[in-house]
């Protein structure tokens, strides 16, 4: 008999235990035991931890751990129709945007796209070195026939970063104005940042069809939006108190203060947040290739799955190149913002 039989007996719970015959799914061990005709518990430890499974052996009314995981799954499935009916229309524009951007980046011919990207990086960084590096890297990717996949990755990052900034900056501003909102939001941000990236995908796969682009779009945005929120909040809170006091003393309204003082002075921090957001969406876009996100990540995945070493490494180097380009351009833009602040 099982170890905890005595416990239930002394507690006088035998009747309650006998009531319910277990209908939990069989564990692999039980199944093997049944097939082999042996007692499964014979191999158990002498003094097991009173876990659900061990208590279940003595008393059928105690649930098994597998009942718990099954319950979570059932709950999720039950909530799915309601959640889907709300979230589906709400997130549909994201699918359109991602598909639109993918289409746009593919349909514009390279001889327009490459000069355009180089021009953008010049406008953002105003640095010859960075611009030349960008032109060189894109041409290199195109030369080894990775232009199309690189553009797909880039288009996803543009859309996801853009949305992260559009949502993240207002959230950060709201957080900087209310301590209670900040206290409520920080744990959520911590959760988003510490969840293993694969775990993001699990509930999303349940909710949306894998063929929809918003599936990976949401995963990337959830993961990448955190730094821009945090640094907007921090940047505004770090604005010199004396300057804020002066703004108050001259009778600025809170709107004038936000636009004229707080946001410009927080801009270097916000830009640092955007830089981090870009980097994190690039990291996530590779993982998102597991759920049909196109781009360089697909080639990496192919490298792993089919053991095509060369394909995987080339795609990996391509991702590194993209990362360096995006990082350098956004950092150069950041330092430009910082310069005007110091005023030299």
């Amino acid at each position: 008999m099982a170890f905890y039989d005595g416990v239930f007996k002394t507690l006088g719970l035998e009747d309650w235990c006998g009531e319910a015959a277990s209908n939990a799914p069989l564990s692999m061990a039980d199944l093997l035991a049944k097939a082999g005709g042996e007692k499964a518990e014979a191999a158990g430890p002498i003094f097991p931890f009173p876990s659900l499974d061990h208590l279940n052996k003595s008393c059928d009314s105690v649930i098994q751990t597998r009942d718990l995981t099954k319950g979570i799954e059932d709950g999720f499935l039950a909530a799915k129709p309601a959640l889907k009916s709300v979230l589906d229309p709400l997130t549909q524009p994201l699918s359109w945007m991602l598909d639109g951007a993918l289409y746009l980046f593919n349909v514009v011919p390279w001889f327009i796209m490459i000069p355009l990207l180089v021009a953008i990086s010049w406008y953002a960084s105003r640095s010859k070195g960075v611009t030349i590096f960008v032109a060189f890297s894109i041409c290199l990717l195109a030369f080894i026939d990775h232009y199309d996949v690189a553009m797909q990755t880039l288009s996803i990052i543009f859309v996801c970063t853009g949305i992260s900034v559009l949502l993240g900056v207002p959230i950060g501003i709201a957080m900087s104005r209310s301590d209670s909102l900040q206290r409520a939001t920080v744990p959520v941000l911590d959760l988003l940042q510490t969840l293993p990236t694969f775990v993001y995908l699990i509930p999303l796969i349940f909710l949306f069809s894998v063929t929809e682009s918003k599936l990976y779009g949401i995963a990337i945005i959830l993961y990448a939006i955190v730094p821009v929120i945090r640094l907007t909040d921090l940047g505004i809170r770090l604005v010199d108190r004396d300057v804020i006091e002066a703004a108050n003393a001259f009778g600025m309204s809170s709107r004038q203060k936000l636009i004229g003082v707080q946001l410009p002075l927080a801009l270097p921090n916000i830009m640092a947040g955007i830089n981090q957001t870009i980097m994190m969406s690039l990291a996530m876009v590779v993982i998102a290739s597991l759920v049909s996100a196109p781009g360089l990540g697909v080639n990496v995945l192919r490298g792993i799955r089919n053991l095509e070493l060369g394909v995987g490494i080339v795609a990996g180097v391509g991702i590194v190149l993209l990362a360096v380009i995006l990082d350098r351009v956004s950092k150069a833009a950041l330092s430009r913002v910082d310069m005007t602040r110091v005023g030299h």
Partner: protein
Amino acid sequence: MTAQPKVRLRNLYKIFGPIDKTVLEHVKAGMSKDDLLAQHNHVLGLQDINVDMQAGEITVVMGLSGSGKSTLIRHLNRLIEPTAGEILVDGEDVMALSKDGLRGIRQNKMSMVFQKFALLPHRTVQQNTAMPLLVRGEDPAACEAEAVKWLERVGLAGYENHYPAQLSGGMQQRVGIARALTANTDIMLMDEAFSALDPLIRTDMQDLLLELQKELHKTIIFITHDLDEALKLADHLVILKDGAVVQQGEPQGILLNPNDPYIEDFVSDINRARVLRVKSVMGPLDDTTQYAGDVDVGDSLEKLISISGGETGQAYRVLDGETPVGQLDMRDLVKALVPRVSSSKAED
């Protein structure tokens, strides 16, 4: 004294802490700052402040750090909310104002100069100076012209397009003053405006302020911890200690008649010959005396000593303009130079 003070503070109390209104009763019953902190964990900022600030005068509030002087000046435009008391500006109760009304008074009636300058680092000198007008929503071109005018007035012509970080501390504070002047308000609040500057530049800035004041006749409330600065600038001097007014009045009177050991300590280090004026130590005219010469009421004792060449046996006739108003015996002058003189020669 003129009829209506520009700014009046009536029974003003400030206690820092979550239940300030409740512990106020203890303070009114006479509890000291230390006891309040020990028993109720509240900090007494200001207690029972009654000050009248006259239009066109410089009122200097002086005290050591922690005496509540910066707290006091921030009550005038309600950057800090008082626990109890009245603040009247032009007879209007600032405490009764709505949020918009308060913004209005900050925009139109008071401007402020800060110890740490508090300029906007991302704006040019000119944009900083024009800021108070832009906040009011005035025409940008007019604001610019006004800013250029005041920058020139404080000696910063040619620096319009620099950023604050490119200027020295003294120049940054000139921008701060230009900003306050551009606002064109009757009242200027100056919170330790010159304390962060080195001594030579500080003297320059004090001269600049006095020169501007001669022309503009603003109501200036000036905070300082420096007695020399206070005596140089003040028309009306208020001395704070532990959040309470220890003595207030005409600075020469306070110097000659300190009513508290705290103030005696303060004034003992002062170069009295430079600070005291003939007016404060002269006696009534008496026709029998032989005068060695004429002096003006506003002359400093230092000047008189140099006129007399150190002779102590003479007397001088004191003129206010053309009319003789009194006489000064050099012996009285020498007595006045020693701290803690008896009150017989002083007038308040």
